[in-house]
C-alpha cells in the first residue's frame, strides 16, 4: 500500500496546485478591473464630466488644460467602421468560398495562411501601412501625406479579416449537409444554396464575427499609431489624419507623471476600452448559444 499513499499525495498536490493556479488567474481578473477603475474614477472626480465631451484635447496648456476625448472616440470609430466596411463583404465572400467550394485537403493548407495572417505582429502591419499603403493613398487622392484615417481603416481591415473568415467558415461547415443537398435538389446553384439558404443558419455567427472584429479593430494600437498620423482632431473625411483612443494612450502615457490628472484621464480612456471589450464579449456571448441550438 506504499504506492497508494504516494499516489494520493501526488493527487493532493496536483489538485492543490491547479486550484491555486485558478485562484491566481481569477485574482488577475479582479486586479485588472480594479487597477483600471481606481485612476479612472479619480479622473472623473478631478475633471467635470462635461469637460470630457469637448473636442479640444490639450493636457499641457499654459492657461489651463482641456480634456476633450471626443477626437479619440471619433478616430477610433472612423477607423473601425472603415475597417468593417471593407472587411465584412470580403470575408463573407472568402468564407463562402472556403466552406462551399474548396476541398478539405486544400483548405487545411490555406487555413494556415489565415492563422499566419492573424499572427502578423501589429508593428509589421503598421510598418507596411506607413511605407506602402500611405504613399499609395497620397498618390491616388493627391494628398501631401497618406497618413490618414483611411490608411488606418485599410490596415485594420486586413488585420480583422482572419477573425471573420474563421468564425464564418466554421459556422458554414457546422450546418448539416442535408440543407445544402435539399437546396441543390430543388434546382438551386451552389452559390444560391450558400447565400440564400445556408446564410440563414450562420446569421448569428455572422453578427458575432462582426462584433469580434469590431472589438479587435478598436483595440488595435501599434498598427493604427503608425498609420493615422496622430493629430487630435475630429476627422471630417477619411482623408484627414486623426488619433485613436489606443493611440493617445501609447503615445502620451510614457511621458506623463504618475498620479497626475493627465495620467488619470488616460486611464479613463483605457477603462473605456476595457468596457467596450467587455460589452462586445457580452453581446457576442448572447448570440453564440443560439448558433449551437440552431445548427445542431
Amino acid at each position, binding site marked *: 500500500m506504499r504506492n497508494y499513499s504516494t499516489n494520493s499525495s501526488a493527487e493532493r498536490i496536483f489538485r492543490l496546485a491547479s486550484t491555486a493556479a485558478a485562484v491566481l488567474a*481569477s485574482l488577475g481578473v479582479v486586479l485588472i478591473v480594479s487597477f483600471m477603475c481606481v485612476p479612472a474614477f479619480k479622473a472623473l472626480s478631478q475633471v467635470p464630466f462635461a469637460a470630457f465631451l469637448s473636442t479640444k484635447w490639450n493636457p499641457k496648456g499654459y492657461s489651463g488644460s482641456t480634456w476633450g476625448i471626443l477626437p479619440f472616440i471619433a478616430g477610433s470609430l472612423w477607423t473601425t467602421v472603415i475597417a468593417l466596411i471593407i472587411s465584412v463583404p470580403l470575408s463573407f465572400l472568402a468564407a463562402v468560398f472556403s466552406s462551399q*467550394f474548396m476541398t478539405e485537403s486544400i483548405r487545411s493548407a490555406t487555413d494556415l495562411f489565415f492563422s*499566419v495572417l492573424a499572427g502578423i505582429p501589429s508593428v509589421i502591419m503598421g510598418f507596411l501601412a506607413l511605407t506602402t499603403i500611405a504613399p499609395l493613398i497620397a498618390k491616388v487622392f493627391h494628398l501631401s501625406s497618406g497618413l490618414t484615417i483611411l490608411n488606418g481603416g485599410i490596415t485594420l481591415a486586413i488585420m480583422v479579416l482572419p477573425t471573420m473568415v474563421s468564425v464564418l467558415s466554421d459556422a458554414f461547415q457546422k450546418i448539416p449537409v442535408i440543407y445544402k443537398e435539399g437546396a441543390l435538389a430543388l434546382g438551386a446553384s451552389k452559390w444560391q444554396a450558400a447565400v440564400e439558404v445556408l446564410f440563414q443558419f450562420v446569421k448569428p455567427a455572422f453578427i458575432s464575427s462582426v462584433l469580434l472584429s469590431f472589438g479587435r479593430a478598436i483595440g488595435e494600437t501599434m498598427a493604427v499609431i503608425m498609420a493615422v498620423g496622430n493629430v487630435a482632431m475630429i476627422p471630417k473625411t477619411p482623408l484627414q489624419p486623426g488619433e485613436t483612443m489606443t493611440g493617445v494612450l501609447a503615445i502620451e502615457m510614457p511621458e506623463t507623471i504618475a498620479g497626475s490628472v493627465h495620467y488619470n484621464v488616460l486611464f479613463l480612456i483605457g477603462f473605456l476600452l476595457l468596457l467596450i471589450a467587455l460589452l462586445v464579449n457580452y453581446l457576442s456571448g448572447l448570440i453564440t448559444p443560439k448558433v449551437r441550438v440552431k445548427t445542431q
Partner: protein
Amino acid sequence: MRKAFDSIWVLLSAIAYFSAVVFVIWVAIHLYALSRGKLSLAFLFTNPSSGMTAGGVFAPLFGSIYLALWVLIISAPIGVLAGVYFAEFAPDNTLTRLLRSSIRTLSGVPAIVYGLFGLAFFVRFMNLGLSLLASALTLSVMNLPVIITTTEEALRLVPNAQKEAAIALGANSWEVWRDVSFKYASSGIVSGLFLALSRALGETAPILLTGVVFYQPTVTLDPTKTFMALPYHIFILSTQHSKFTEVLPIAAASGFVLLLMVLFARILAYMYNRRIQRWL
C-alpha cells in the same frame, strides 16, 4: 444567365479568399525586398551602431527572445494548471461559470489596456520599476486567458470512456490526468503555448509602457533591468528616427526577422492543433 451571374460571384469569392494567401506571401517578400541586402548572419549578431543607422539587431533580438522565455516560464505552469482546474476540478456553480467567462473575456481586451494595467500594478504598485520582469509579468497576464482556454478545450475533447476506463482500473485523478488526459490533450496544450509564444514575441503595446527602451546595446540577463525588443525597435526606427530613408532597410530587415520568428511559432501552433481558434 443565372449560372453566369453565379460564376462571377464564385470567382469574386475565390479572389477574396486567395488574396489573403497572396498577401501573407507578399508581406514576407516585400519586407525582404525593402531590407536591400541588410539581412545576413552578421545582422543578427551585431548591435545597432552610428545612431542606429548601421549594424544589426543583436540587443533587440536577444531582448525579445529572453522576454518570451520569461513569459513562458511564468505563464505556462499557471495557465496550464488553471486550465486543468476549470476542465477537471471546478464545481459547476455560478462563481466558476462567472470566472470562466471573465477569463474568456480577457482574451478580447486590447493589448494597450494590459500595458496600462502592467504600469499601474507591476511597475508602480509592486514597485518593480520599468524592467524586463514587469514586462514579462504583463505579457503573462495577457497570455493567461489564451493558455487557460486552449488547455481547457483540449482537455474537454478527451473521450470520457477513456477516463472512466482508467478510473475503473483504480487510477486516481492525478493518474488519470498523467496517463490519459495529458496524453490526449498534450498537442492542444502545446499548441496554446506556441500561440502564447508568438504573442510574447510580437506584441509591442504592453511592453511599451512597462520597460522596453529604444537604445541599450549592453545585453544583460538581469530581469530587473530595462531591455530592447525587436517590435519596439521597428516602431522606433520607422516613426521616431530623423533619418527615415537611411534606417528603412534596417527596419524592414528587423521586421523580416520578427516575422519569421512569430510565423514559426504560429505554424507550430497550427501543426499541433488545427482546430485552434485561428484568429487569436
